[in-house]
């Protein structure tokens, strides 16, 4: 341990055992490792394209997504309608493109909710231990013991269907995973020399948690975030497919799939393309997540991986 000056503690972000230079080089190594992973790079490129589609979708789409044109209904694939048209004559390609916005928004916000609730629970639980820990973890176990999609449906039964409620429901469903992962990492970090040093310097619990423990448990949380995004997008698609998530006329992929079901035989493209969009998005997040895991946290076996998908 370097000689900390008791009167003037170093800046909050990287004191005690984490010099700036080492921090930067570690990040550099992580980025290099991820970039050497071909699948992760493919995932990143696909995600970048999806984000572009989500932002500029409505501007670059060849047709207005709500442009109803009954004369052109259920048209097959053609140069004017790449992915055909739906039962109202709307352009499926445009709707799939704009649908990226819904999927990504729901995915990011839902996982954001899970991180914002789950990480503090894990931090507190792991740091304080004792009764707080056992009550919080029991609660998380109970939530975890309910199958993901069933819990989401039950929450939506109470809150009512809709895009905002779907995000809340998915967020609650994935909260226990973040709480558990964070808690596990806190348990290993909290006995470290730098934490004891900070404590002996008189740092408060909040300060220790924020400045010393949190930065050291971020790696597994980042990995889990990426993998959870994949599952959140699948969950949103399932809920929208069931009519509990995004409501019409908003173009969500899951919703488009369920609308396509009625026109299986005449217009299979209505179901094929939104589904492919989901598969590609989920794969991209999985690739990036796996790449990040290899780089940041090779020991971790994702809890979520054994959890299956609803």
């Amino acid at each position, binding site marked *: 341990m370097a000689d900390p000056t008791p009167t003037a503690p170093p800046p909050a972000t990287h004191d005690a055992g984490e010099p700036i230079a080492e921090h930067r080089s570690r990040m550099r190594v992580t980025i290099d490792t991820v970039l050497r992973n071909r699948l992760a790079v493919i995932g990143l490129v696909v995600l970048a394209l999806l984000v572009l589609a989500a932002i500029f979708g409505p501007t670059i789409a060849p047709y207005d997504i709500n442009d109803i044109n009954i004369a052109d209904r259920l048209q097959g694939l053609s140069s004017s309608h790449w992915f055909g048209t739906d039962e109202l004559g709307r352009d499926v390609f445009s709707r799939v493109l704009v649908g990226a916005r819904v999927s990504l928004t729901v995915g990011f916000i839902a996982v954001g909710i899970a991180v914002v609730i789950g990480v503090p629970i894990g931090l507190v639980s792991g740091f304080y231990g004792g009764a707080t820990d056992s009550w919080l973890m*029991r*609660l998380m*176990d*109970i939530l975890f*013991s*309910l*199958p*993901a*999609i*069933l819990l989401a*449906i*039950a929450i*939506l*039964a*109470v809150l009512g269907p809709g895009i905002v409620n779907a995000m809340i429901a998915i967020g609650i469903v994935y909260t226990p995973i973040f709480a558990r992962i964070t808690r596990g990492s806190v348990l290993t970090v909290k006995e470290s020399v730098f934490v004891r040093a900070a404590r002996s310097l008189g740092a408060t619990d909040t300060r220790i948690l924020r400045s010393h423990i949190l930065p050291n448990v971020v790696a597994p949380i980042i990995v889990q975030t990426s993998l959870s995004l*994949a599952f959140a997008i*699948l969950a949103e*698609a*399932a809920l929208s*497919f*069931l*009519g*509990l998530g995004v409501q019409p006329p908003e173009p969500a992929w*899951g919703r488009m*799939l369920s609308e*396509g*079901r009625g026109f*299986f*035989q005449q217009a*299979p493209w209505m*179901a*094929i393309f939104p*589904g492919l969009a*989901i*598969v590609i998005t*989920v*794969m991209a997040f*999985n*690739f990036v997540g796996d790449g990040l895991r290899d780089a940041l946290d090779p020991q971790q076996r994702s809890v979520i*991986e*054994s*959890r*299956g*998908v*609803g």
Partner: protein
Amino acid sequence: MTNYVLRRFGQMMLALLGVSVIVFALIHLVPGDPIRVALGTRFDPDTYAALSERAGLDRPIVVQYFAWLGSALTGDLGVSFRSGQPVTTLLLERLPATITLAFAALFVAIVVSIPLGIVSAIRSGSKLDYASTAASQVGVSVPDFWAGIMYILLFALALSWLPPSGYVSILDSPIDWLRHLALPAVTVGLISGSILFRFVRSAVLEALHQDYTRTARAKGLSEREVITRHVLPNAWIPIITVVGLQLGFLLSGVIVVEVIFAWPGLGRLALLSVQDRDFTVLQGAVLLIAAMFLVINLIVDVLYAYVDPRVRY
């Protein structure tokens, strides 16, 4: 060992109790009068009075919870606000279809993933390994309902090999039962198999790199003996756990697939009860599904302790 089983059982009961509180809270968190909501346009004062009396919604909430819990323990989960039928009857009617689908899907998953996972690990880096790893990557990324729709498009509509949906009891016609079961079982089984494959492959790979495997080779055992006597017995343990966990998910998590294939299981019942706002049925379904899930997890844990002589509790 007995102590361990008892402790795990106690934990499971505690979790189940927690689930029961959440499930019970469901009905009370819904805005408005749940019975009025459920009856909707078919509102009739007599039915309303009868259902309210039965549900006892005017009593203090703690009293209601214990009354509900007490009846639930004796198998009485109340009556459906919609049809007036006992919830337990409705659930028991749907249970066989769900169990059938879960085991059929698990069968598909095991048959595909275990041999492929073992071979992929032994010949890691080969074309087969590469192809099956890629396939499992697709498998875990495909939404089950979309895969189901694609199979219906291909096998039922385009090729007319199998019926697109529905359920036939095995007692009525074993062949029709199997024909109806095939597509939903493959839909769920291949996704579950993709998850299982990753675990089998990594468990076998890990065992292949252990010291005991090197020793076995050094001793001059044939590769076949090394694998069957040293690698596989050690790889089984994590695999059993994941198979068990998958069974738990299959019993509980195939709601959307049941909907697509009009499969009369618990998941579809739960969804219909949400759409009908029939909350007693939803409560019952969630409770039963969670209970099955917890019991299977308990069995998996105990089995794990039993098969692994290194695990001491």
